[in-house]
């Protein structure tokens, strides 16, 4: 017998043997748990109220989640890299204010105005990244700073423009009302961004570098990865996503007012956590964030539909975060 064949023959038969079904189940839950929860919620809610699964309500949910959905893409990237971005709520405000003001009060077309809004959003992200990577300050501190600074900036511009802006540009109107491939246009925008982000994270050098930086920063550096550039690029991308969320916010509301984007960072982080991406980074997929967004959005929609007050809604959302984090923690530990 060849040595390799002998070695194989000698291996104890038990090595690949029986695994208890509970362990299979835990492994399965760890991989598909979020998806199962989403499906279960849709079923339960759908059975309890027929209207819930009606076409109109599904479109409604999709439109509602598209804003936080796009914002959560950027947050996913940042958290996968081992960082956190608290400033996206303010970035949404700034980009919405700039775009809204330029098209409504300064006569710019929709596209140049959107360009300017996205540029500003990306710029704030860049500032985050440069402070974090270049100077080495903790992301939570830097982005808390930009959260407050950008909030002030956005409110100041808004005050200058007459404290609220009614955006009448037909582009934004059609974004909110049009259907593309039988889906609401805003939902299509969100799904397109998820598709782009999935490809970016899985199949581009930057995506791999984001995972590597989050997974083991020092090892990534020693593998020759330009950590600084990766950090800056990721925060810039997160800013860009927040900017796109700002554009969707204009479309959905038709009005840019003081509370645009307010607290959105927490909704985005909730969705990311419910999707199973841990704060320590390096592990998880953006597709799961979409499920997280869907779960949170579905529950909110159902509670609103049932006439539960907004205060309870908040309490329940908080409970969801804790439950998600607990489930993830429990299955992760058992799966290893």
């Amino acid at each position: 017998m060849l040595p390799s064949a002998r070695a194989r023959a000698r291996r104890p038969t038990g090595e690949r043997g029986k695994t208890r079904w509970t362990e299979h189940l835990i492994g399965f839950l760890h991989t598909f748990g979020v998806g199962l929860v989403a499906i279960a919620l849709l079923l339960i809610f759908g059975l309890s109220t027929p209207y819930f699964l009606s076409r109109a309500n599904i479109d409604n949910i999709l439109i509602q989640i598209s804003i936080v959905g796009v914002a959560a893409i950027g947050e996913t990237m940042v958290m996968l890299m081992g960082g956190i971005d608290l400033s996206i709520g303010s970035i949404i405000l700034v980009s919405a204010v700039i775009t809204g003001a330029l098209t409504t009060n300064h006569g710019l077309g929709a596209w140049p105005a959107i360009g300017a809004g996205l540029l500003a959003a990306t710029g704030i992200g860049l500032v985050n990244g440069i402070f974090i990577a270049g100077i080495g300050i903790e992301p939570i501190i830097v982005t808390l700073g930009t959260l407050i600074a950008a909030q002030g900036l956005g409110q100041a511009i808004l005050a200058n423009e007459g404290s609220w802006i009614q955006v009448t540009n037909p582009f934004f109107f059609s974004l909110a009302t049009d259907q593309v491939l039988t889906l609401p246009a805003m939902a299509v925008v969100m799904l397109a961004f998820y598709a782009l982000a999935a490809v970016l994270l899985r199949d581009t050098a930057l995506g791999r570098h984001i995972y590597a930086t989050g997974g083991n920063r020092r090892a990534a550096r020693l593998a020759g990865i330009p950590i600084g550039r990766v950090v800056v690029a990721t925060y810039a991308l997160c800013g860009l996503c927040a900017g796109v969320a700002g554009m969707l916010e204009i479309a959905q509301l038709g009005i840019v007012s003081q509370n645009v984007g307010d607290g959105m960072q927490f909704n985005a982080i909730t969705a990311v956590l419910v999707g199973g991406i841990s704060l320590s980074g390096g592990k998880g997929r953006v597709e799961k964030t979409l499920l997280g967004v869907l779960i949170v959005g579905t529950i909110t929609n159902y509670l609103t539909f049932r006439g539960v007050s907004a205060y309870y809604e908040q309490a329940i959302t908080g409970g969801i975060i804790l439950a998600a984090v607990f489930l993830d923690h429990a299955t992760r530990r058992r799966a290893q």
Partner: protein
Amino acid sequence: MIEQVRRQSVPGADLTVPPILEMAGISKRFPGTLALDHVNLAVRPAEIHALVGQNGAGKSTLVKILAGDYATSSGAISIDGQPVAIHGPRAARQLGIGIVYQELSLLPNLTVAENLCLGREPRHGISIDSRRLLQESAAALKALGLERIDLHRRIGHLSLPTRQLVEIAKVLAQHPRILILDEPTAALAPADCDRLFEALARARAGGVGIIYISHRFQEIIAVCDRGTVLRNGRVVSTFATRDTCLEQLVEWTLGQKPDRYAQALAKDATTTSEPVLAVSSLAIGDRVADVSFQVRPGEIVGLCGLLGAGQDEVARALFGDQPAARGVILWKGKPVLVHSPRQAKKLGIGFLTENRRDEGLIPDMAVRENISLAGLHAITWARWLPLVRRGKERAATGTAAARTNVQAGALGRPIRLLSGGNQQKALLARWLMLDAELFVFLEPTRGVDVGAKAEIHRQLAALALAGKAVLVVSSDVPEILALAQRILVMARGRLVAVLDGTRATEEQVLLAMQGGYTHAS
């Protein structure tokens, strides 16, 4: 009868003494694998019991069970004849089990003294009695002959071997009754190993039962009383070290006769070409001064020295991981600055360190992506379209993995699930895929099993044969002797000797390593 008499004469292996720790029929099942299969292990008081086996044989799992990290799937553990259940690390400590891990458990931001007394700080009412803290930690270090370590330094500022010594001192200071050491000497230079062995002898004299895990068989034969060999989760043999020999141990662990290293191959390689790397007057902070040497294509150069002699720093400087480095580095005749690992990578320098977990692995990434990580630019569609070509990635990583004998089936799994030896081979594949021209290896076989070690040695030899330049830093002198054509010896931050690797003896190298300590420099 004769057999029995001989056994009894072995200190600590008196089989009539009831065991202090007994594990009977221990099995541990993980999804898809049976890590331990009815393992029996008995350790008597005043015995040093070796636990031997390749990575993945089940040693770590056994230790984790004793540490209270894992529950057993079946089997019984008793201490002093009393059945016990170890529910968590705290319970393990209360049962008198002390463990020195291979992966250190010290807190980098605390000082040496604070770490030594962590969790049992002497108190003064509610505040910490810092004078007694210092006294107690000084005593803990003194027990190991480590007075030279500064109690006030932060752990994060110490070198890895020094941290290892502190870790050992910390566990010993808790006076465990059952002491487990997981490859304690892997990071240690010979002098420090001797200190450790003295401390172990003292602990044994005090009646402590010691489980000693090591890949260094000579050490096991010299230090241990009895031992148990694991292979694929099963006990292959329980032996008295008196009755065994090196070759026997290797055969038990591998399950086959040992291979010979490929050193002969490397030594045939001719090295007449121009040096790919020439270092002159390299200085790093105040730790290294005036180091000059060259490495040619097709050559394996060994770099060794006692703990802290500066060999680590020199190797790291070549990879841009030593910001304080000064001096001239010529790469293919041209002066270059290597400020970052990224620059080193671009020049064509590959790097593999002793510290896989912190400096090599992206634990949750698949093996394949870990391999391709440094070389993504070569497998994208175009510079302006940095999308990874999946097919090309598969091909390139597959080829590199095959060259280092990483199982093809493992490529899709997260790298943290692989054994230490396979992880190291995968990391080597990373630089092979990049086609680096100079490979810098820092303790490349530290903590890997015999089989993987031989394979990594073959790899190094093959690299040299393929015309690559190789620099190996190792504190394992036989390894350096087996591999290197030239041996650079450092002491006290200076290069003190250059020896011919084909003729030098172990004594010569060890003597040179002492050089800087006997002569005033």
